[in-house]
């Protein structure tokens, strides 16, 4: 199957998972996905569990507390919703690990171009953010005031805008020089 086929299979699996309300079936599908994921399964599962931990733990604990107090607790619900979320997020990580997302989007050239350029921008701008954070930390021995942190956040925003505008101009010039849209 080609990359776009995997993309459609992934989307169909996501939709199907939201129509299944039997925990045993969802557990079987998760086991099947784990088995099919091959040697990367435990790394992907660990990544999945870290990704869902905060939100699912908050929702599950809140639900348990509320329904135990109200006398309507359902372990079936907790198993169902957590299995569904883990399955859907695992499928996403497996898809991205197995398939080149840009190749899957190849049928939409403009989308591929925008995403490729955006990913490059993101990587470069992430470095700006990291540099700002390290500089701010190194220059503040004590806890900075709210005013200082607000000014720091504003400076980051300005630097990001500046760098983005410069990068967009640079890309436009590069594309124009290569006659990217002459067809």
């Amino acid at each position, binding site marked *: 199957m080609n990359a776009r086929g995997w993309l459609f299979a992934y989307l169909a699996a996501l939709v199907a998972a939201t129509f299944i309300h039997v925990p045993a079936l969802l557990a079987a599908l998760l086991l099947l996905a784990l088995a099919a994921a091959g040697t990367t399964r435990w790394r992907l599962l660990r990544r999945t569990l870290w990704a869902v931990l905060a939100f699912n733990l908050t929702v599950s604990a809140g639900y348990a507390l509320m329904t135990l107090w109200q006398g309507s607790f359902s372990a079936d619900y907790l198993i169902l919703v957590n299995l569904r979320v883990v399955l859907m997020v695992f499928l996403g990580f497996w898809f991205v690990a197995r398939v080149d997302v840009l190749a899957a989007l190849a049928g939409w050239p403009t989308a591929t171009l925008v995403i490729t350029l955006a990913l490059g921008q993101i990587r470069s701008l992430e470095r700006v953010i990291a540099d700002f954070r390290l500089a701010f930390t190194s220059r503040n021995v004590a*806890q900075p005031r709210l005013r200082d942190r607000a000014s720091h956040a*504003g400076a980051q925003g*300005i630097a990001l805008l500046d760098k983005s505008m410069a990068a967009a101009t640079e890309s436009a010039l590069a594309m124009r020089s290569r006659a990217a849209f002459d067809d």
Partner: protein
Amino acid sequence: MHIPDGFLSPQTYLPAYAVAAGAWTWAARGLRDKLDETTVPRLAMLTGLAYVLGLVMVPLPGGTSGHALGVALLALLFGVRLAFLAYSGVLLLQALLFGAGGITALAVNALAMGLVGGMAAVAAKKLLDRLGDTAAVAAAAWLSVALPGVVVALVLGIQPLIAHRPDGTPLFFPFGLAITLPAVLLPHAFIGIGEALLTVAVWRYAKSRRWT
């Protein structure tokens, strides 16, 4: 604020995709005819910028912080359509590559944060301009966080009503509106204040560079 996969019923996300498809078509209209070596990098730049603005820590009283949305800034500087498209691209990338948010929830997240947030910011700026630029931009930024919060809380809060077993046990998100509205809105009211400070600072700079 992102809703992850698995907590929205198909009765919610499928109609949301229909609405979002219309909104994406509206946002891309005109842009598609103008896609060239200037507009494509600009859209990509905005998508990248929208993503990293979400990494800027917005300071909150008490030493804590939240994440900026950046939608108000994008909408005020580049218009609602571009801001909505860029933010949708960010959500798609976050869902596919970084596991944040979700594909089934993409339409709701994009409509709430990208469209409602962007429209709220632009409308508030227009309505409140007579109060002065700073007040109008600050109010726009605060609303661009608070209103999407209301939408997300409403969408999550109706899940137990529209998707449950015959005995009333929920099938997706378990909490009703009485819980979701205060749980989402109270923290975001504070995050909105930080977002307003950030947006005003960058807005003033953008004006000084004649980007507005």
